[in-house]
C-alpha cells in the first residue's frame, strides 16, 4: 500500500479527533477508528511506519497508532 496515502489518511483522522479538548479521548478515538475501519494490512503498515524514525504522522496520530499496536498485541 502507498504509505504516503496511509499517512495522509491517518493524519486526517487525527485532524478530526484532535479537536477534542481531552488528549486521552483524542488518542483513543483515533486508535479505535483505525481498529474499526482499517483492514489489517493497512493497520500493519501504519503501525510499522509509526515505529520509524522518519515517521510522518503527527505526534497525536503517532501516539494513537502506537497505542493501537499495543492493544492489538496478544496479551
Amino acid at each position, binding site marked *: 500500500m502507498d504509505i504516503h496515502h496511509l499517512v495522509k489518511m491517518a493524519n486526517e483522522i487525527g485532524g*478530526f479527533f484532535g479537536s477534542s*479538548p481531552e488528549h486521552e479521548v483524542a488518542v483513543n478515538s483515533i486508535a479505535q477508528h483505525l481498529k*474499526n475501519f482499517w483492514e489489517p494490512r493497512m493497520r500493519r503498515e501504519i503501525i510499522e511506519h509509526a515505529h520509524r524514525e522518519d515517521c510522518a504522522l503527527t505526534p497525536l496520530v503517532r501516539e494513537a497508532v502506537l497505542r493501537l499496536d499495543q492493544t492489538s498485541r496478544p496479551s
Partner: protein
Amino acid sequence: MLSINDKDLGTPTRDSAKLITLEVDGRAVTVPEGTSVIRAAALADVAIPKLCATDSLEPFGSCRLCLVEIEGRKGFPASCTTPVEAGMKIRTQSEPLSKLRRGVMELYMSDHPIDPFECKAGGKCELHEMANAVGLVHVRYGDDGRNHRHVPIDDSNPYFTFDPSRCIVCSRCVRACDETQGTFALTIEGRGFNSQMVAGQHEHYIDSECVSCGACVQACPTDALMEKSLLEKGRADRAIVTTCGYCGVGCSFKAEVKAGTRGDEVVRMVPNKDGLPNHGHSCVKGRFAWGYATHPDRVKRPLIRKRISDPWQEVSWDEALGYAAAEFNRVQQKYGRGSVGGITSSRCTNEEAYLVQKLVRAAFGNNNVDTCARVCHSPTGYGLKTAFGTPAGTQDFDSVAAADVILVIGANPTEGHPVFASIMKRRLRSGARLIVADPREIDLVRMPHVEADYFLQLTPGTNVALFNAMAHVVVTEGLVNEQFVADRCDAGEFKQWREFSAGEHNSPEAAAKVTGVPAEKIRGAARLFARGPNSAIYYGLGVTEHSQGSTAVLAMANLAMATGMLGRPGVGVNPLRGQNNVQGSNDVGSFPHELTGYRHVSDPQLRADFEKVWHVAIDPEPGLRIPNMFDAALDGSFLGLYIEGEDIAQSDPNSQHVAAALSAMEIVVVHDIFMNETAKYAHVFLPGSSFLEKNGTFTNAERRISRVRKVLPALAGKEDWEVTCALSNALGYPMNYNHPSEIMDEIARLTPTFAGVSYEKLDRLGSIQWPCNDAAPAGTAVMHVGGFVRGKGRFLITEYVATDERTTSRFPLILTTGRILTQYNVGTQTRRTLNVTWHPEDVLEIHPHDAEQRGICEGDWVEVTSRAGAIALRAEITERVAAGVVYTTFHHPETGANVVTTENSDWATNCPEYKVTAVQVMPTARRPERLPADRIIAAASPSAR
C-alpha cells in the same frame, strides 16, 4: 390517462378527525369533514359523471358534468366543489340531471369525434366513457360548425404528443403542472371558443419550461395528451406494481404490460396513486426513460477472455461461472484469502446486495466487500450513526408538509430528486420558509412561486465553517432548545460543544472570510432555522463528497439537536440519496466493517448468529474499502474483484488510478446489463437483469422498503440474484434460494431492524419503513421520537479544516460537480433513452468574469486541467456559478469528469472529494470526438429512428 383499473374518486382525500355521515342515493356513507360530495359518493360506490375533477387535483368546478341534487336545496350544485354536510341527502340520478349532463356532453362532443373508433385511446378515454355514461350517442349540431380540427399536433416532446383538436380545455393538465409538479409551464390562453392550452409562451412543449414529468399526460381525460408508447403499442392488458430503478425517492409505479407477438412488452409506466413516496407523481426518468431495458446494447450472453487485450468470447453460463470461480480460487491460493473481494451496487435490490456481501464473507472468506455508497453517502452513515445511533434519514418524505423552515444544502432536488422536490415545493408555496446553501444558484433559489429567504452561496468545501457559524449564532443568541438538549443529549459533550461553538473563530464574521457568505446572511439564516418552530434539513452529495463530509454530517446533527429539531414530523436531518437503493444496499451489510443492520464484524455474538445460519466462520476484521482495494491492487496484494452493477472506472475519482488498479488485477468479473467502462478491464462479463426483469426490494431515502416485481422475462435468462447464487455455488459455497422472498426472510431473521419484514407483509401494506419489528410491526415513519436510538444524542466538536485541494496560480478555479434532471448518474441507462434529447453532452458552467478573462465564448471548447488530468468540453457562460467556481455534470463517459477529480477523500469514510477540484480552464483547439446530436438521439433509442 389514468392507469388501467385505477379508480378515480374525483377529489383528493381530506384529513380531519371529525367524521360526517350523509346519504348518497339512499346509501349511508361516513367521510372526514371537508370531503367533497363526489368523493363521498365514489366511496359509497356511486359514480358521478365528471371530466374536470380527478382525485389528484383540487376541485375546479368547470365541466358542469358532476351536477347533483341535494335535498332541501335549489338548483344542481357541482358535486366536486360541494363539501359534505351532516345529514345531507344526495341524489345523483334524475331526469333533469340526465338532461343537463347529456346537454353538456353534447356540447363537448360537438368538437370531438363521438365515434370511439376515432378515439386514439380506443374509446377508453374518460371523455368517451362519460359520453357513454350519460347515454349520448348522437350529436345534433353536425360537423359544419366551427371546430378545432385544423389545429396542428405538437409532437415535439420525445415521449408524448399534444393534439389540441382533442382538448376539451378542462384545465386538468394546467392544474397538474401547477399543483402536482409545481412548474407552472402550462396555461389556458384566450377566451371562449379560442381558449386553448399552451405550453410556455405559446411554444412547442420541447421549447417550453416543461420538465416532461408527464403529470399533464396522466391527468388528461381525453386523447389530447398521450404517451407515444401507448399510441404505438395500444392499451395494456395488465398492470404490475413495482418500484422505479432511478433515484432514492423510490417512486412506486404501475408497469402496464401487453402481450404481443414478440412476448410481453411494457406499454407505459404510470406512477402509482397509492405509492407512499410519490403519491401518483413521477419525473421524466421514471415515467418515460425505461426503454434502455430493451436497448440493443444489452448483453445477453456471458462472455470471457483470458487477457483484457483479447476479444470477448460468448460462452455458456456454466463455462463463464466456472472460469470465474476457478480464477478466484487460483488467485486466493496464490496470493492469500484477502486477495479478492466484491462490490455491491445501489442499483441492485436488497436481496442481490445481501447475496454479494454473503458471497464475499462466506465464499471468499474475508470482508473485502464495499458498495458504491462509499463514493456518495458513506459520511451520512458514519455521521448519523455516531450522533443518533442510526445511519439513516430521520423522517418520511411526507414530513416536509409539516416543516415551517426548510434548509437545503448541497442538494439540487428539482434535478436530482424531482418528485420529492415537487412535494417540497408544494409546502413552500403554502408558506414554509426556505434557506438554500449551495455554491451554485440552483432552481429552488428562485422559481415560480418559490423564493429562498436566504441563499447562502458558499465557496465549495466550506460547509463545516458555515454550520459552525450557524451553531455560533444559536449558542450565543440564546436559541438553544435547552429542554431538548437536557432531556435527550449527552450533557458533557454538549458543554464542550457549546464552548467550542461560542468561540470567536466560529463567528459568522470569521466564517464569512472562509465561506464567502456575508455574516448577516448567516446570522439571519441561523435565527430563522432555530426559531422554526419546525425546521428540517435536506442535504445531498454537496455535503458528503468532501474531505470533511462526515464532519459536515455531524455538524448538521449538532445543529438539529441544539435547536430540538428531531423526533417529530416537520423536522429532522434528511439525506437525499442519489441512487434508488443506496439506503438498502448499506442496510444489508455491504460495508466492509459491518454485517446487516450496521453491526460491526468484530462482535463475536453477532458473528456467531450469522455463522449458525451461514455454516461458515466469518472473519472478525474489517475488509478493504473500494479506494483501499485500488491501492492494494497496485501494491500487488489485491488481484480479484466481482463487481455487480457498478461502473467504477467511470464513477470513481482519478480514473487513471482506477484504470491502473483494474489493469493490475488477474480476475475482474463485471456483472451488469451493459458493457460499461469497467468492463474494458474485465475477464468475465455476466449479463445482468434490469429492474423490470426481476423480483426483489429497494429501500429508498426514507427507509421505505418497496417491492420490485418482475414485469418481463430476464433477457439473459437469469435474474441477478440467481447469477450470484450460481457463482457462489461454483466457488464451492452453496447458495440455494427458490425466490428472493427467502433471501429477505434470512435478512429479517438476522437483523433486528428488519425482523418484521416479509414479502407477505410488503404485499399487504404496500411498503414498510424500517425499523419494522415487534415494537413497530407496521414500520417507523419518524425516527428518534422521545429519545435517540443510541440513547443520548452525541455532540462532537466539528472544527473546520480546509481541504488540501487548494487553488493556486496554476489551478485558480474550483470545479464542482452535480447532476441534471434528465440524466442519471453515469448515464448508463438514460443515455440509452430519448432523454439525451435534452442533454446530449456535459458542459462546463463558467462565470462571465472568468470566461472573459480567458477569452472564452459561449459554446467554445475548453480544456479543464487539474493536478490529476485534463478533459475537454464546451463552455456555458452563466451567473449560476460564482466567479472562481466552475461546474459540470458527469453523465457522459466521453466527458471523463473523473479524469480530473483527485484522490482526496473524507477523513472518516474515504468518500471521494468530488465536489472540490482545483482546475484551470482555457480555450482549446482540442476537439474530442462527439457524435452530432441527431446521431446521439438515434443511437439512444434505435426504435425511435
